[in-house]
């Protein structure tokens, strides 16, 4: 089972993983000097302006045309200034990214940025915001880093504004964080100084589950889950009145048939073709998914407990075990109990979400 939590201390920080700069950190002119000799470097350094003097290294040359470095996004991939993938410039990541963008090496800059986990990326972006290269970096972020990068920039800029972050500033960020993994959301809120956690039966809830500026919080989805659990309790209870159910499969089939009769298709994402192939409809991480996963685990824990108890009493796989295990009355009651275990969890989640709303600030 996938753990919802992770211990950030166990994950090697991306900064630690990055290789140190190579010992040979000669850059730019020094490197050219080594390759092409002093004359070439002197020629570069001693420009003469509009006038050409005898003896001047640029005599016989037209005055240089001053031009900007290529704009970000038109990186000269083949240009020698840009470091090939896997190699890097001297200095810290902020300096390296800054210089790479200045050199028009956008691929290189985002190679560094994209390699960072969120907890390393956010402070790195914050360090880049005051740099002159930042507007070009930001302009290229969508194309080179995707929504992960543009959201990270929004988070870093919010932090850089300084001052207390209230609900009005936080809610637009919450809208963006919904598609991030739980640890990444938490790292972003922590970075903003807005990590308030309420633990509900093993699930850490934070502001990322609250309403955004435009998107709803998890309240509607949790209310839907409560309604569904109650409905399913009713569906199972109704099976008690059905005669001739032999085993658990019959119970499940009866529930399925009842839902079908009501026009309810429990398959919400994915369609089965006539050949039986299920086409998956991929959907992005939903911001409320961790709540629904925990609810499903709580439901399953009830079935596990029953299974273990019967195994202890009758022995796993014995005919007596099977008889009890598949008995329709037991099957019905177990699911009424299992859906029943979900409901108080969801209710506690609603209470926690209300508390969090109150803690978000003005």
């Amino acid at each position, binding site marked *: *089972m*996938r753990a919802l939590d992770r211990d950030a201390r166990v994950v090697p920080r991306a900064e630690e993983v990055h290789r140190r700069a190579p010992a040979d950190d000669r850059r730019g002119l020094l490197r050219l000097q080594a390759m092409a000799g002093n004359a070439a470097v002197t020629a570069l350094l001693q420009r003469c302006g509009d006038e050409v003097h005898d003896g001047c290294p640029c005599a016989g040359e037209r005055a240089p045309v001053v031009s900007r470095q290529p704009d970000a996004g038109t990186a000269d991939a083949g240009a020698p200034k840009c470091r090939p993938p896997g190699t890097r410039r001297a200095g810290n990541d902020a300096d390296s990214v800054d210089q790479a963008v200045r050199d028009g090496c956008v691929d290189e800059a985002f190679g560094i940025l994209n390699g960072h986990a969120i907890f390393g990326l956010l402070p790195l972006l914050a360090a880049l915001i005051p740099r002159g290269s930042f507007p070009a970096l930001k302009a290229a972020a969508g194309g080179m880093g995707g929504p992960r990068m543009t959201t990270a920039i929004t988070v870093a800029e919010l932090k850089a504004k300084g001052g207390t972050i209230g609900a009005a500033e936080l809610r637009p960020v919450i809208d963006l964080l919904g598609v991030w993994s739980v640890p990444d959301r938490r790292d972003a809120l922590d970075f903003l100084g807005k990590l308030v956690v309420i633990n509900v039966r093993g699930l850490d809830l934070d502001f990322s589950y609250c309403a955004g500026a435009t998107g709803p919080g998890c309240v509607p989805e949790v209310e839907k889950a409560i309604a*569904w659990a109650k409905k399913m309790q009713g569906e199972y209870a109704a099976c008690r009145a059905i005669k001739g159910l032999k085993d*658990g*499969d019959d119970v*499940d089939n009866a*529930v*399925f048939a009842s*839902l079908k009769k009501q026009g309810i298709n*429990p*398959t*919400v*994402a*994915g369609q*089965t073709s006539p*050949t*039986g*192939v*299920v086409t*998956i*409809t*991929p*959907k992005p991480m*939903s911001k409320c*998914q961790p709540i*629904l*996963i925990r609810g*499903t*685990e709580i*439901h*399953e824990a009830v*079935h*596990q*407990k*029953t*299974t*273990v108890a019967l*195994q202890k009493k009758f022995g*796993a*796989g014995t005919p007596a*075990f*099977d008889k009890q*295990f598949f008995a329709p009355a037991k*099957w019905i009651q*177990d699911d009424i109990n*299992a859906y029943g275990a979900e409901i108080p969890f969801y209710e506690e989640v609603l209470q926690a979400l209300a508390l969090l709303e109150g803690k978000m600030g003005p």
Partner: protein
Amino acid sequence: MTAMTVRVTGVEVDPLGRDLLRRWLVTAEALDGGGEITLLVHSPSLAFRDAAPAGRVFRLELAEPVSEPYAGAFTAHPVEE
């Protein structure tokens, strides 16, 4: 009906949330060379009659044609190793 011997390799809440009744995704490795099969189930405990089926070997009998993931009826009998 399709029968196969499998080792359950993974049990997780279906990350894609494809089915409101079958919320668990069970991944199993077919031991008779059939590759991997995934099953959407309501409850791993109930489907495998085992509170912790991961890592264990079962003989599966699928009532419907194999699909990816398989969401039909099946029975699972533990196989002693």
